[in-house]
């Protein structure tokens, strides 16, 4: 479904990704974890081409992602993305947020787009918020709407970049619940997160990154029971200590 080969990227002299390769199959849920600054956020943003790369090749559903941003737009619309800071459009209502790309990218009619939005809003329990503005909502609500906005595009896969890191603790659960449900329905998901509980419950494989490198890729159970690299062991002992 998504194949990444030899991805490398640097900011000036500073390498942020070194020769990263990963293949994610249809319906698979992969969690990417690692210490902060390990390049995992950049990695996931490169997967749909919103961060340019210096070397490497990304294939999505059999199509190679073109290096020209304009040519990549069509493929990009097929992969949903959820950001750490939600990035809902503050000048638009919830309904307009969810319909904008449906109408202008997928060329759906307004009626069809709104029906799609309403059905998805009901699923995440926010049917009553369609005419609210993002700033009137809590972080957890905003993130659930950001997930709906991505799902409304009927994506073949979803990318999550630390979807719960900017949330107050009491709101993390409601967002993870939506993600868990998505995973159970068979959505292909690549999730950057520190939520090891979610990883254990939903992920088939764990990718551990450090210093811009993929250090280890392992089955979830195996990763938590017996990580093969010293760096992953150290990371786990720190993150699971509390």
């Amino acid at each position, binding site marked *: 479904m998504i194949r990444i080969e030899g991805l490398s990227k640097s900011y000036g002299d500073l390498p942020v990704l070194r020769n990263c390769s990963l293949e994610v199959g249809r319906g698979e849920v992969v969690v990417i974890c690692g210490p902060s600054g390990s390049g995992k956020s950049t990695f996931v943003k490169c997967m749909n081409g919103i961060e340019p790369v210096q070397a490497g090749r990304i294939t999505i559903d059999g199509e190679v992602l073109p290096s020209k941003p304009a040519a990549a737009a069509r493929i*990009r619309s097929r*992969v949903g993305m959820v*950001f750490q800071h939600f990035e809902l459009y*503050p000048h638009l209502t919830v309904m307009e947020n969810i319909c904008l790309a449906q109408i202008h990218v997928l060329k759906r009619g307004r009626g069809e787009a709104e029906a799609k939005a309403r059905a998805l809003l009901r699923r995440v329990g926010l049917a009553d918020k369609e005419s609210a503005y993002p700033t009137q909502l809590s972080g957890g609500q905003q993130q659930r709407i950001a997930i709906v906005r991505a799902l409304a595009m009927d994506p073949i896969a979803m990318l999550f970049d630390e979807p719960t890191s900017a949330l107050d603790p009491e709101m993390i659960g409601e967002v993870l619940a939506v993600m868990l449900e998505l995973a159970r329905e068979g959505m292909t998901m690549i999730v950057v997160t520190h939520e090891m509980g979610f990883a254990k419950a939903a992920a088939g494989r764990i990718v551990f990154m450090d210093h811009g490198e993929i250090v280890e890729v392992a089955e979830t159970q195996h990763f938590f029971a017996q990580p093969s690299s010293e760096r992953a062991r150290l990371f786990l002992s720190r993150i699971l200590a509390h």
Partner: protein
Amino acid sequence: MSGFDISVILHALPFLAKGLGLSLALTAVAMIGGLALGLVIAVIRLSRFRFPAMLAALYVNGFRAVPLILVIFWFYFLVPLLLGRPVGALYSVLIAFVMFEGAYYSEIIRAGLKSVRPGQWQAAQASGMTYLQTIRLVVLPQALRKMAPLMVTQGVVLFQDTSLVYVVSLHAFMTSADIVELYVFAAFVYFAICTTGSVLAQRLSSGRRHAY
């Protein structure tokens, strides 16, 4: 000065009104034209096309480095030369103002576009929008709210600058007055119009604080 003779103002009113009309018309055309030109320049400057972006930067910095009065002069002599026929002072001045204001407005618009968080660009791009769709649907509407007060302020400055067209023998509001009484009256009208503009600019900027 023996006394302040109000009848001088009354007699000159039709002439003054004509001057005020030219000032307001110039301001309106230069604002609309300048905003349109400024938007195009700003979008080019922020695009990933290096060479056009460089040309746009050259344009902006060039116009911002010379006084308006010089630009008015240049266009008065240059435009007829380039077109090969006389165009009249009014048209040369209109072109000069639009091009000059375009440079200033492009800077206001560019700052406004850049003030929108990178995450908003990324979210729009990730959903498959093109560069122009991202600007039109996501970035510009947010930037406009931040830019509105600055744009009105620039409009006020522009209105005052229209008095400079006297160098090509056009009479805007200020130079339609030529005696003490009339200069005082002209000052009063400028003050009234520009203060209204400034108050509007302040309203816009404080209104924004409430809205968000």
